[in-house]
């Protein structure tokens, strides 16, 4: 019985905690409070994961109104997997956030930061647990609005324009999703995802459904930053506060991919999705182009965070590429990469936050000679970077392996080539950071730049070591991803 309550608690706890932060205006206290709440959410997520893998999906009816009339929360393996990822990353990032925020935000703003952070977390968790499409829309908007706020808190004034552009694009995307939802409702009269998946099967020839599908997919792709709908992301990640960048980079787009998975394979159904639109071709082409273009653009950036932002766009393109394979192994590759990429980007952005903390700038030029002065921080960046490239013994290699296997299985040699070529491009943009940090002498050698404080190094290294650990002990990722793949492909929902 308790476990059934977990589903709603997962969302309600951070939701209520957010305004409570508003009441407690003290910077350090709100941080501790937010950290506790996030940790609590992680525990709930892990409990849910255990529950789901042993007993099957967890279902909860809000207000005891049964589906399909009432709103239902439904968590299966895929959902629990993502919940674990989002909450764990959130907690680890929050561990480091106190010091980082102190250096980037004014004292009055810090508590407000945590309010927005918790709301964003609520929104994302809500997206994952809900089984009702309109509820999904609401949570999408909650997380979006909270993230606009988070981004706008950046020091640089460009954070404001970045947040504004993101707002326009995000709302556009959400509204497209709303249109899709409306059209689906018109066809079936239900808002429950499971119910929809059953009813939409008979309607697969309907033009309305086709329109609904198109609007929905485009809307989600806007949120996903799938090339060519990606232009809001670089500025948004670059100019936002470091903690927000780390959090959003590791989680926000993954949740969007979750929505895509849920709807393509669940609600609309695999058969319809891939035959209504030439979805396989579209996703694969956009994936390939995204990988190549975004990685190349990353090479030319002068700001470390911008490099990582473009890198994120490329990595998302990878996930969409393998999703587009429409095969068991392709889906497995996407799911594994969701986990691995969260680890990689989380570690890298957090390490960059530590650098920002010490030198106050993210321009690569300023990194000269830092390899010597901040050895631990940059060692973490090296490992994270190598993971991004896909060196064996890191999570990046595991992702690449699955992706290559998935593409070679279908005999698509060119696709496999693109995948490894993307690794090479990643090596180029990552190496620029290494070279500047280690091979160039510092501009002002007399200026003593200290290593990042321990309270920052610990979360950074937690994530970095996770990069290596999960690159060696793949059992957890593999098992859960396999179960999730089976549940996606096996049944409608």
């Amino acid at each position: 019985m308790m476990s059934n309550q977990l589903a709603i608690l997962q969302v309600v706890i951070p939701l209520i905690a957010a305004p409570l932060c508003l009441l407690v205006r003290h910077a350090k206290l709100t941080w501790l409070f937010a950290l506790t709440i996030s940790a609590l959410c992680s525990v709930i997520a892990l409990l849910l994961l255990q529950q789901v893998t042993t007993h099957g999906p967890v279902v909860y009816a809000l207000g005891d109104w049964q589906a399909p009339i009432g709103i239902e929360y439904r968590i299966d393996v895929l959902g629990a997997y993502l919940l674990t990822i989002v909450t764990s990353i959130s907690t680890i990032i929050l561990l480091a956030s106190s010091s980082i925020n102190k250096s980037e935000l004014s004292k009055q703003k810090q508590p407000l930061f945590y309010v927005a952070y918790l709301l964003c977390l609520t929104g994302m968790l809500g997206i994952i647990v809900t089984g009702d499409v309109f509820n999904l829309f609401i949570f999408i908007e909650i997380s979006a609005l909270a993230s606009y706020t988070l981004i706008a808190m950046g020091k640089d004034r460009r954070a404001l324009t970045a947040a504004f552009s993101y707002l326009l694009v995000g709302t556009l995307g959400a509204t497209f999703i709303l249109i899709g939802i409306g059209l689906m409702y018109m066809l079936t009269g239900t808002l429950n995802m499971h119910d929809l998946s059953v009813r939409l099967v008979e309607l697969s020839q309907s033009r309305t459904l086709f329109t609904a599908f198109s609007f929905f997919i485009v809307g989600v792709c806007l949120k996903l930053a799938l090339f060519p709908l990606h232009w809001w992301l670089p500025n948004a990640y670059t100019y936002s506060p470091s903690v927000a960048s780390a959090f959003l980079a590791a989680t926000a787009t993954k949740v969007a991919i979750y929505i895509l998975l849920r709807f393509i394979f669940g609600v609309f159904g695999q058969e319809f999705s891939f035959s209504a639109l030439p979805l396989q071709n579209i996703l694969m082409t956009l994936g390939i182009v995204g990988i190549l273009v975004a990685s190349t653009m990353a090479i030319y950036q002068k700001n470390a965070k911008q490099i990582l932002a473009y890198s994120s766009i490329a990595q998302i393109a990878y996930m969409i590429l393998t999703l587009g394979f429409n095969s068991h192994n392709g889906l497995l590759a996407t799911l594994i990469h969701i986990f691995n990429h969260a680890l990689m980007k989380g570690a890298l952005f957090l390490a960059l936050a530590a650098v920002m903390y010490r030198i106050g700038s993210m321009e690569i030029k300023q990194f000269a000679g830092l390899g010597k002065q901040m050895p631990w921080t940059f060692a973490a960046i090296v490992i994270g970077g190598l993971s991004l490239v896909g060196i064996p013994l890191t999570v990046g290699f595991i992702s690449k392996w699955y992706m290559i296997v998935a593409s070679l299985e279908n005999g698509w040699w060119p696709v496999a080539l693109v995948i490894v070529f993307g690794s090479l491009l990643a090596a180029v943009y990552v190496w620029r950071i290494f070279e500047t940090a280690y091979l160039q002498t510092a501009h002002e050698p007399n200026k003593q730049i200290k290593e990042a404080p321990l309270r920052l190094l610990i979360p950074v290294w937690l994530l970095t070591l996770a990069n290596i650990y999960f690159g060696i002990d793949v059992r957890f990722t593999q098992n859960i991803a396999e179960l999730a793949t089976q549940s996606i492909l096996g049944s409608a929902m």
Partner: protein
Amino acid sequence: MNVAESFNYWAVMILMMSGLYILIAQGNLVKKVIGLTIFQTSVFILYISMANITGASAPVISEASSQTNLLFSNPLPHVMILTAIVVGISTTALALSLIIRIKRAYDTIEEDEIHDMDAQ
């Protein structure tokens, strides 16, 4: 295609496209927000119009509703739209406050001028 029957969809489409156009084409940030709002409104109209049933009355329980065979319009889309309107308002509020902050930081709210200032 009977225009009279699907006139609500036409209205929705016209509003949607106008909103989208304003959003993209206008340089002034406030006008962009207006465009966004028009765009969102078109979706609201889509929902509400789909909820309507010809010859039905408003979905309010009253004395008269105790009669059987009374047709009500679907209240669910109305509910959804109320929620969506609230979301829309929050978004607009956030957008407008961002504009105020932008104005303070850049002294302009024209997109191209901001772009130039950022490029420097």
